[in-house]
């Protein structure tokens, strides 16, 4: 029974059902057991399922549960598919997911909507599992939208604050833009290749479409649209920072570790298609590059602890896209995994900080907290090191692979590499800016806040710390899936390159230290220059994308809605009515009641008829 793939998404779903149907009537303890327990069980099963694949990465297991919909030649099965790639994903989802659930039992303990929280979390995990296990794109789309929905529900979890609701809607609608593109991609793929089964599609694309074929370009572009939306890449990245309105464990699970990387997964899953459209693939790389730089700049300017992490997430996914774009599929997935570890760690630690400091988000109002918040401090140190790709932490390996793969690309490879390295420099700066500001220096306030902790919250942090540090030594079993010789094993890479790649993040950390640790340099003084101030403002607002979109889409849409609020077509009807009534008004005047006029009309009528009779 435990070898059934169907059970894996079903376990969390069962948890969801129990919590949903009970309608919040269960005691908290049971909610916690059901909520976290179902994920825990799922994790165990995922381990069971994934271990054979890890041993032999060519192992593929499939299970068709039933035929979902079939109309004529169109059939989409509820079929699940497990290979190396999805094994990594399910482990990350259930593993990290379980830890975060566990953490949440502590984090959310005072929330009145405890049960609702876990219900949606479980639903999320279930959807995410469907997403990564789906053997066809439609089923994947089911999971894809499901996670989007859960994300929406959780961002707006504290619904009484309208701005949370706004953020939730923004997230959903923005990703919906991408989803729609993806849906059109599905239509195209089915219409051209006659199936939505991923395997069949990839085979079909390879055999029927040549390299660089228009269909391949169109299909991959459309799918890319979906990926860009879900993974918060340019130009649809604006929703993620706002999505931090949700409870912090949500940010950790959905907006850092799993859902946002679904785009990466999608592209990796359909990499055959992208390989057929090299231009699009290169576009992926450049999107990744642009996003990682953009987000890096922005992250350096943020004050909100979660927004910094959010931008860093965007940036890190940019790396993954960069990797995908240069064909380093495995490296990207590897980075996805390590990122899941260290970013979940950072978020959870941030959660601890926030909870301990009574929902304070502004890092500049913290300071010197390393003694007060030891576990958070340790977590942040390790997480930030990994994030900044400090040598031999998990992030180091994965980012290294991506950058090397980029370098190996002919033509724009060097530029991509340089961009990536610059990005790594910024990563060093912003990640340690956070650490220095929050944990070092003088305490901005004089409260003596105790760290909110406990086993449920501390244990996940510990585990994640270990993985963030050592996760780099795990080798994801994806070589078979991508059937490529790993590029980074080539020996042509010079030691200089390696040295640069080690040195740059360290330099970033160093700069950060000079500014925020030792306070030898001051960012405030930089801001006295008008150019710097302008840039700062620009970066701070996320390169003005929000304003741009507001001007470009939201305002025109609202204007349009206002323009024709009453539906001009209805006024056509109203006009007809008005004309009839005017006709009535006119005609009634002839009914004057005057007998002589009536006689005149009879005479006139006869005269008219006679004339007409003569004319006709």
């Amino acid at each position, binding site marked *: 029974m435990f070898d059934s793939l169907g059970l894996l998404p079903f376990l969390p779903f069962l948890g969801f059902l129990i919590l949903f149907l009970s309608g919040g009537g269960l005691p908290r303890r049971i909610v916690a057991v059901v909520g976290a327990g179902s994920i825990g069980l799922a994790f165990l099963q995922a381990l069971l399922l994934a271990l054979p694949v890890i041993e032999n990465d060519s192992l593929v297991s499939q299970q068709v549960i039933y035929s979902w919909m079939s109309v*004529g030649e169109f059939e989409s099965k509820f079929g699940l598919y497990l290979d190396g790639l999805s094994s990594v994903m399910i482990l990350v989802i259930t593993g990290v997911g379980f830890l975060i659930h566990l953490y949440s039992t502590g984090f959310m303990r005072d929330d009145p909507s405890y049960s609702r929280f876990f219900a949606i979390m479980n639903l999320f995990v279930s959807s995410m599992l469907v997403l990564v296990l789906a053997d066809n794109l439609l089923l994947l789309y089911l999971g894809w939208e499901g996670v989007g929905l859960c994300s929406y529900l959780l961002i707006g979890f504290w619904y009484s604050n309208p701005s949370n609701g706004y953020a939730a809607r923004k997230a959903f609608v923005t990703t919906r833009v991408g989803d729609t593109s993806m849906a059109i991609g599905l239509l195209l793929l089915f219409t051209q290749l006659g199936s939505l089964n991923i395997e069949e599609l990839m085979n079909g694309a390879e055999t029927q479409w040549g390299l660089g074929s228009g269909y391949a370009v169109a299909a991959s572009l459309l799918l890319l649209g979906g990926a860009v939306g879900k993974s918060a890449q340019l130009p649809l990245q604006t929703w993620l920072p706002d999505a931090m309105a949700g409870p912090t464990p949500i940010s950790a699970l959905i907006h850092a570790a799993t859902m946002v990387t679904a785009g990466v997964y999608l592209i990796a899953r359909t990499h055959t298609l992208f390989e057929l459209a090299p231009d699009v693939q290169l576009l992926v790389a450049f999107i990744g590059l642009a996003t990682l730089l953009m987000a890096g700049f922005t992250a350096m300017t943020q004050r909100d602890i979660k927004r910094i992490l959010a931008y860093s997430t965007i940036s890190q996914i940019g790396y993954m896209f960069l990797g995908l774009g240069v064909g380093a599929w495995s490296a990207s997935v590897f980075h996805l995994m390590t990122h899941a570890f260290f970013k979940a760690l950072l978020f959870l630690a941030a959660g601890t900080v926030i909870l301990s400091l009574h929902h304070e988000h502004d890092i500049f109002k913290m300071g010197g907290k390393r003694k007060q918040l030891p576990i958070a401090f340790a977590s942040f140190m390790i997480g930030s090191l990994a994030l900044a790709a400090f040598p031999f932490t998990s992030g180091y390996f994965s980012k290294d692979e991506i950058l090397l793969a980029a370098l190996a690309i002919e033509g724009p490879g060097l530029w991509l590499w340089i961009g990536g390295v610059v990005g790594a420099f910024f990563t060093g700066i912003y990640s340690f800016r956070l650490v220095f500001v929050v944990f070092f220096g003088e305490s901005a306030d004089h409260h003596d806040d105790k760290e909110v902790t406990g086993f449920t919250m501390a244990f996940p942090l510990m585990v994640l710390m270990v993985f963030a540090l050592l996760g780099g030594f795990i080798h994801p079993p994806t070589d078979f899936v991508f059937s490529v010789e790993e590029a980074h094993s080539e020996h042509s890479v010079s030691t200089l390159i390696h040295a640069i790649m080690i040195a740059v993040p360290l330099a970033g950390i160093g700069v950060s230290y000079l500014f925020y640790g030792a306070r030898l340099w001051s960012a405030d003084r930089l801001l006295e220059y008008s150019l710097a101030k302008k840039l700062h403002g620009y970066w701070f607002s996320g390169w003005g994308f929000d304003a741009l979109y507001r001007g470009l889409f939201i305002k025109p849409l609202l204007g349009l809605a206002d323009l024709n609020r009453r539906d001009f077509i209805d006024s056509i009807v109203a006009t007809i009515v008005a004309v009839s009534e005017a006709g009535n008004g006119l005609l009634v005047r002839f009914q004057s009641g005057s007998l002589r006029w009536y006689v005149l009309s009879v005479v006139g009528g006869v005269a008219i008829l006679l004339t007409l009779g003569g004319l006709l």
Partner: protein
Amino acid sequence: MSILWILLILFVGGVVAWISEAINKQLPRWLALSSVILAMLPLVSLMDGGDDISSAWLSSLNTAWIPSLGIQFSLAVDGLSLLLIGLTGFLGIISIASAWEEINSRVGFFYFNLLWTLAGVVGVFTAVDLFLFFFFWEVMLIPMYFIIAIWGHENRKYAATKFFLFTQATGMLLLMSLLGLAYFNWKATGVLSFAYEDLLAVDLAGDVERWLMLGFFVAFATKLPSVPFHSWLPDAHSQAPTAGSVLLAGVLLKTGAYGLIRFTLPLFPNASSEFTPVALTLAVISILYCAKLALAQTDLKRLIAYTSVSHMGFVLLGIYAWNLIGLQGAVMTMLAHGLSAAALFSLAGGLQGRLHTRDLRKMGGFWLASPKMAVTAMFFSIAALGMPGLGNFVGEFLSLLGVFSVSVSAAAIAALGMILAAVYSLWVMQAVFQGESTATSGLQDLNRREMLAYGAMMFGLLVMGFFPNLFLVFSDSAISGLLSLDQLVAVAKGRW
């Protein structure tokens, strides 16, 4: 025969419910409920193959009615009708449930009208004599008119009249067209007949076919409704009592789509085929334009009404895809939209009953006071925005899939509607249930009866979403049969 039973039970049940008011005020609703349930029983016998083996129909009935005009009383059911009758019955029960507490005056007459509307709709779904079809088509309007005019809200006169006039005006065009069709059949064969199967065989000259088709199309597009014939709907929906809105949105709109599938396409294959670009354009405009209008509304029911039009655009889209996938998508959308729109109207009605307003600006933050209602509303909003796993998605996706092979641009532009759907659905959720709770925080949550009704609809949407084949299998044979009609096959060949 079983079809006749359905009709008879509903007609007689209506009369009995009316009379029973004299005995006890509670009686009509129970009688109405039990007649609808009773009327649906014959359906069960039709589900496994039906009682008419000789023809393509599951069951049919044919007797002379007005022989001097070649009119027969002829009813028949195939898979498509079966599904829609099922929907009618289901929503009939839902509407009775939603009227349970809302309607307190003239109870007997109300349920009489309700049941007669249902009967008219069932008649429309089963009539295979075009005169009879038209007869039912009109008959279902009268009780609906009464429902809006008597139990409607503040502006009910305008709304009821508008509703009636729109459908009547275009109904006349339909009448003219179907008479024209019968006339040309008479001229060709010398037999005056309104029978569906006779008229299928009429060979029309190009221009004639075009004009006659237009008559049919306009009538059905008004009922569907599609831009530019939609403007009756927001008024009718917002003014009707909840049960009326439920029936209107859930069932009456579907008669338009049914008419297109059953009559317009097969009777006028060439003209309809030529008309495809126009129909697709109208569909796309309906989807986007009405979604846009929905965004601007402050009246909750009006807003939902516009979204209805928007969603019915997908039906039109699927129908004019001219392939099995598209048509099945249309059918699925009809079913799913029937449930989701009915539920949303029901919720809006519930809110109005509690707050005595439909003005969105006066709502907000109801989640805290009535979480069940909020979750329910969330569910159906999500259904409406096309969440996979719920029926609406299946329908819309299949419609788009069907149409994509015909017109990439239509499918692609229509897909933008999915974005707008997300925008307005979530905006409404925000406006009503999220945000800070307003003064009316003492909002009563859903009671057991309401939960049961909504639960049934949620269940239905989930089943449609996850097991659409259960439904598609019924309409499959009907639609395949339709598409394999000689003339349609010829047209289809010409197209591709």
